[in-house]
């Protein structure tokens, strides 16, 4: 009998496992693939490797000082190999951490047969059953593909296949202008591919701050990525080494696009293999598992965290929930507030955001003030030759509460962490302005935006109001 059995060894599951083991629980983790889940193996970490490679190339190409003859280019094979090495290092490291904590990791497909009972179809073919007082479902998600599209793995891919492909198509159509679509567009464009994004909605990364979205759209157009908004894809057919996409734009006119490959980036759907909700009587919410604010499903002793419960499908949200669920299992209490979870996008520029947008704040009728700072005015950004960027902070004008922060620019995803920290500590915007930042660093941009919130920015020209 285990204290805790976890199905899924991704960022939700492995964090819960380690935290549980640290508190003396006897933990077993069932993982069908590699530890680390989508994030480490088929998602964020992989794309971060590629983005880094791509940006290194771009920086070298656009440098005013790097000289020499010959052509700089990326070898896609080496790029994928480097990524595999990074993933291998991290997965191996994770395995050793789990081992050091005394966590039993079982390789196989986990199935919840009843509360407290798990069956594992071992990779070797045998079947084993385990009993545990508490079960956490952390099975994650997989790419969601519209029913009319058939993924063949070569001409029609999802990120699962794309991140392991060593060949670069000449012309790529990406269906979906969300975070994943944007990242992939950036990677492929830098690799020299002609990229077209087809987005159903009226804008890319629709949940982000309008000003930031606009900046990102401009950046993408500058780099030659074509973005088609309000575009509904009707049909995707592969034939004769080409892919034909039929779509309708907002005028209702049907159009056809021919490319070498299609990447389907239309969101993600929960992995429920091994969790027969109907038979178990498990409550769901749309396609996702339904939980209460203590991460409990309706089945006794069965919890769920991460992508499988929906909401923000982010690795760090899953990890935060993984920590919190263990706190609940141990009889404590820990909340994961969505408004405190940072969101990140890596593309031609980074976007880091946390909390609500200006539009959302206004819709809520909150009294707000906005502070901004342009990277252009940052000494560090100038030194880095990376001056396109903006920090925007939205605060309650009466209480100083930080309602949201939105950053586009170099290292935006690193910078947003400190705003998340300030919000978690319930600091006011003035606190963000108060802490002294090292100079010259990008961290000053957050401080300056916070100062601007009080109309006291130092490194920006006086505003004409």
């Amino acid at each position, binding site marked *: 009998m285990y204290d805790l059995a976890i199905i899924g060894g991704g960022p939700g599951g492995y964090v819960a496992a380690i935290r549980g083991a640290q508190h003396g629980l006897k933990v077993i983790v069932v993982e069908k693939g590699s530890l680390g889940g989508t994030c480490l193996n088929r998602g964020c970490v992989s794309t971060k490797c590629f983005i880094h490679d791509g940006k290194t190339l771009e920086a070298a190409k656009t440098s005013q000082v790097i000289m020499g003859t010959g052509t700089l280019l990326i070898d896609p094979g080496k790029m994928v190999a480097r990524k595999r090495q990074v993933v291998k290092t991290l997965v191996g490291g994770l395995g050793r951490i789990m081992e050091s904590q005394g966590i039993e990791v079982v390789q196989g497909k986990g199935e919840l047969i009843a509360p407290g009972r798990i069956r594992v179809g071992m990779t070797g073919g045998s079947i084993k059953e385990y009993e545990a007082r508490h079960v956490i479902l952390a099975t994650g998600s997989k790419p969601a593909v519209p029913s009319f599209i058939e993924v063949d793995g070569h001409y029609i891919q999802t990120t699962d296949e794309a991140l392991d492909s060593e060949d670069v198509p000449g012309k790529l159509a990406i269906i979906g202008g969300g975070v994943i679509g944007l990242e992939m567009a950036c990677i492929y464009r830098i690799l020299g591919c002609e990229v077209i994004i087809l987005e159903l909605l009226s804008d890319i990364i629709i949940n982000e701050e309008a000003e930031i979205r606009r900046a990102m759209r401009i950046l993408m157009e500058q780099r030659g990525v074509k973005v088609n908004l309000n575009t509904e894809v009707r049909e995707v057919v592969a034939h004769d080494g080409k892919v034909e996409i039929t779509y309708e734009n907002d005028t209702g006119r049907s159009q056809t696009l021919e490319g070498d490959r299609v990447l389907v980036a239309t969101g993600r759907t929960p992995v429920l293999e091994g969790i027969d909700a109907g038979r178990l009587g498990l409550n769901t919410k749309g396609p996702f598992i339904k939980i209460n604010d203590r991460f409990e499903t309706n089945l006794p002793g069965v919890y769920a965290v991460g992508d499988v419960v929906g909401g923000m499908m982010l690795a760090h949200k899953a990890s935060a929930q993984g920590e919190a669920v263990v706190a609940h299992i141990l009889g404590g209490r820990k909340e994961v507030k969505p408004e405190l979870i940072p969101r990140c996008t890596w593309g031609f520029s980074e976007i880091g955001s946390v909390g609500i947008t200006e539009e959302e704040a206004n819709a809520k009728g909150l009294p707000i003030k906005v502070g901004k700072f342009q990277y252009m005015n940052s000494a560090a950004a100038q030194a880095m030759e990376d001056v396109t960027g903006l920090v925007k902070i939205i605060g309650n004008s009466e*209480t*100083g509460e930080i309602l949201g922060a939105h950053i586009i620019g170099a290292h935006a995803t690193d910078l947003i962490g400190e705003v998340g920290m300030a919000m978690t*500590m*319930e*600091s*006011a915007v003035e606190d963000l302005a108060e802490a002294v930042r090292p100079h010259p660093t990008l961290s000053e941009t957050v401080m300056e935006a916070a100062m601007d919130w009080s109309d006291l920015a130092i490194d920006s020209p006086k505003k004409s109001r």
Partner: protein
Amino acid sequence: MATEVVVPMLGITVEKGTIVEWLKSEGDLVEKGEIIFIVETEKVTTEVESPASGILAKIIVPVGVEVPVLTLAAVITEPGEELPAEYATRAIEGPPGKAKVKTQGEQAPVSTTPPQTPATPTGSIEAVPAARKLAQEKGIDLKTVSGTGPGGIIVIHDVEAALKPRVEPAVKVSTLARKLAEKEGIPLEGIEGTGIRGRIMQDDLRRAAEEKAAHGLGKVVQMNSMRKVIARRMAESAVNAPHIYFFTDVWMEPILDFRQDILPDFEKKFGLRPSVNDFLIKAVALNILDFPILNATLKGEEIHILPEVNICLAVALPEGLMVPAIANADKVGLAGIIQQRKDLVQRARSGKLSMDELERGTFTISSLTQYDITYFTAILNPPQSGILTVGKTRDELAMVDGEVEVKKVSTFGLSVDHRIIDGAVAADFLQNLKWKLERPSFTFLTV
């Protein structure tokens, strides 16, 4: 604009009052409704609320001086506003020889550097020699030391305490929680912080506020100013005035029928609906004219029989109880009583009663007819000497001319201050009231 704070009217019989404590010092921020000083009269001690928000710019009446009511006690200015010149020189001398450092109008400035000359003994600061010596050695100004010895004398321990750096218990609180606490006036002390290392977060304050609002066991509830006044006055009454209690059953049908009889005509003429309580107030007021001692108050060794009959009516409010008084209930007509009652109850609920309306009462009626309470005793509302209680009207079997009949009956209780009212007098009063209520057409003949 500067706001004047006066020593309030403390009841018709009160002409003078003494401020016994200033809860705020000059220069302090005060909120409207916040208690700023406590005034004592021969009758009661009353907490006086600030009439405005701002800075307590000048205290004019110091502690310990008896002044006529309505004397200008202090001036409140708006933040940033200069004290108007006409107030600058206004001052009332403190009582000679009684001055205590802490309660002086102007506070001694806290010196950050040791005084050049050693603190010299002065008549107004009492300290034991050892304390004085230590203070001198360490350069502590005795004016800044509060004494805890007998009679407030400064002992060596007090000087030692003053020497220690003042370490405020650091309440760890998030910026937003601190702002919320300031805005909502929630004290941070005693709030359990659920943040990292016990940091108080906004949710902790909200939870604390909710718990405060919720009913339940095992918690500490701060008394509001009304509750404090009630607590003090009830204790004062229970301790000082020996109570005796009398009960009688009043046959209620006559007064109920009488009311029904006159209701249509009365409404037509006055546009008002008299309640049974209104008849009761009037009957009690008339009864007091027959027994003036029930309208008396004890002052030292004198019994003061008050010139007006002002009947207090208890009004239950969420925060506690208010007992505004209907003035001259013996003289005004029934319509006048109804108008006063309606107006007072309404203003009691909206918190707009004047001090006079609250303090002028000479006799109280406490009615629980809405409850399933047969009878009850009451604590006198000081400095009054009598309080009448009325229980529910119930059906009772009674022998009338050898026949069993159902009668509507209510048990009336009377509590009196036995120091000045004898049992026989109290019994007569109650019996006479019963007689009046059971014969309404005669009682209210001229009303």
